[in-house]
């Protein structure tokens, strides 16, 4: 117990003294995760929307596949993307392995199904009358799509926040594709694993506090948004 309290106290000291190494790790984590979330959203929201409103053969199959992909383990993605990006791999000439971009690629694969799948369910829940109303008021296909996405915005935003929470807490992809390079691809989770390996707990505990704060903050934001949504109905 004494050991934990001591680590906590020193970690708090590190946080308040604005330790540059600590905050750079936090910065790497946040920027990589935000980038992954952004790319996955830009791709996943339209994809989810078209799956939800589109009428095409095999739609149920596509949704089933999407839901299955929710369970993709991070290490499997890590391994797969590693094989692609390694200099020996298909895309090796891009020279992306062990860079933040490699982590982003892996994480996008991880959360794209999340964003798309949750968008599908958020859009499917939206009343059919919104589509007809927008159309009869003269909206074109894109304007109609936007009106529906706008009505589903809290559900979609929830998906985006959940996706962000998933990538920031993820370690397999960051470790295998980023390589845990100090000052470059060392994220909160890989740094924590390393510090644990080194038997050092202060930095790990400090990062744990930040990670927990970010995750809780994201969940609170989600709750608040959904609360507002519920009240609006």
């Amino acid at each position, binding site marked *: 117990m004494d050991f934990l309290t001591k680590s906590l106290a020193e970690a708090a000291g590190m946080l308040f003294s604005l330790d540059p190494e600590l905050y750079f790790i936090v910065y790497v984590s946040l920027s990589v995760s935000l980038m992954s979330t952004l790319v996955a959203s830009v791709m996943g929201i339209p994809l989810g929307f078209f799956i939800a409103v589109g009428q095409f053969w095999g739609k149920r199959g596509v949704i089933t596949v999407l839901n299955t992909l929710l369970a993709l383990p991070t290490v499997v993605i890590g391994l797969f993307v590693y094989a692609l990006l390694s200099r020996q791999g298909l895309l090796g000439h891009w020279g992306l392995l062990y860079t933040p971009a490699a982590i982003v690629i892996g994480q996008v694969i991880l959360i794209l199904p999340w964003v798309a799948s949750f968008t599908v369910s958020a859009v499917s829940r939206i009343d059919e009358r919104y589509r007809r109303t927008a159309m009869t008021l003269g909206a074109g296909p894109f304007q109609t799509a936007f009106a529906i996405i706008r009505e589903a915005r809290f559900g979609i935003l929830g998906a985006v926040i959940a996706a962000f929470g998933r990538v920031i807490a993820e370690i397999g992809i960051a470790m295998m594709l980023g390589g845990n390079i100090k000052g470059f691809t060392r994220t909160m989770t890989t740094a924590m694993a390393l510090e644990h*390996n080194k*038997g050092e707990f202060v930095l790990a505990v400090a990062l744990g506090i930040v990670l927990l704060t970010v995750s809780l903050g994201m969940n609170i934001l989600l709750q608040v948004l959904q609360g507002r949504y519920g009240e609006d109905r």
Partner: protein
Amino acid sequence: MKTILQLLYTAAFLCILGAGMDKAEAKDKILTMSTTTSTEASGLLDYLLPEFYADTGITVRVMAKGTGAAIRDGMDGNVDIIFVHDEVREKQFVEEGFGTKRYYVMYNDFVIVGPESDPANIREAKDSGEAFARIAAAHAPFVSRGDDSGTHAREKQLWTASGISLTSGGEPADDSGWYFAIGQGMGAALIFAQEKKGYVLSDRGTYLYYKHGRTQPYELEVVYEGDDMLKNPYGAIPVNPERFPHVRYDLADTFARWLASEKGQQVIGSYRLQGRPLFFPDAR
């Protein structure tokens, strides 16, 4: 809506910032190196790399892993240089054309770490092979790196020297309940051994760092040391540009030469942890 937009703006801002940073770095001289956990965890690189940067302006990006994974990175052309300790495989690496030349850099030595009480009584062994045989005979807990690292390779050599019956993989055939292959770095193995009150083969640098360099205490002791079979040489090998044209060979070779230079050797030799030297210059 506003919130989404704000999120997007923040993300976009950070990306631009990130992109700007990448560009700034692209102008700098950057080298990617895979090395063993021991060089990083012992604190040597934190001491050595700033000196190298001061001399040459080259930044070294370090990935610390087991020697096996580090050599693999080199064979796949994913790094510019490897800095590892497994002489046999290093020479093979050069012979097969993956690396240009193996530079002798330094050595430290392995020690057998265990509880003060020494339940397998290995202090009285006449060589390290016999020490390992005693551990096996006593079924005292033994923690193996099990991660294909240089240390792991050395463990296997010592098991062979011990004369006990082994599997085709070179590990004890009878491993029930006392042999723990954990597949992690040196530090994790040391911590694991402490929890199990068992034995572990460690490089001296990492052990000293754990014993004296940290805020937390470490209770295991060196129970066997000094054998020739425990000597542990480190080599630096630039990845061959003929095989992988994209590698920054000139930077890698500069680093390797610097390590073997008088200045580099002096820096390595002067590194102290709690007043004790960890690595010994070995340039030839």
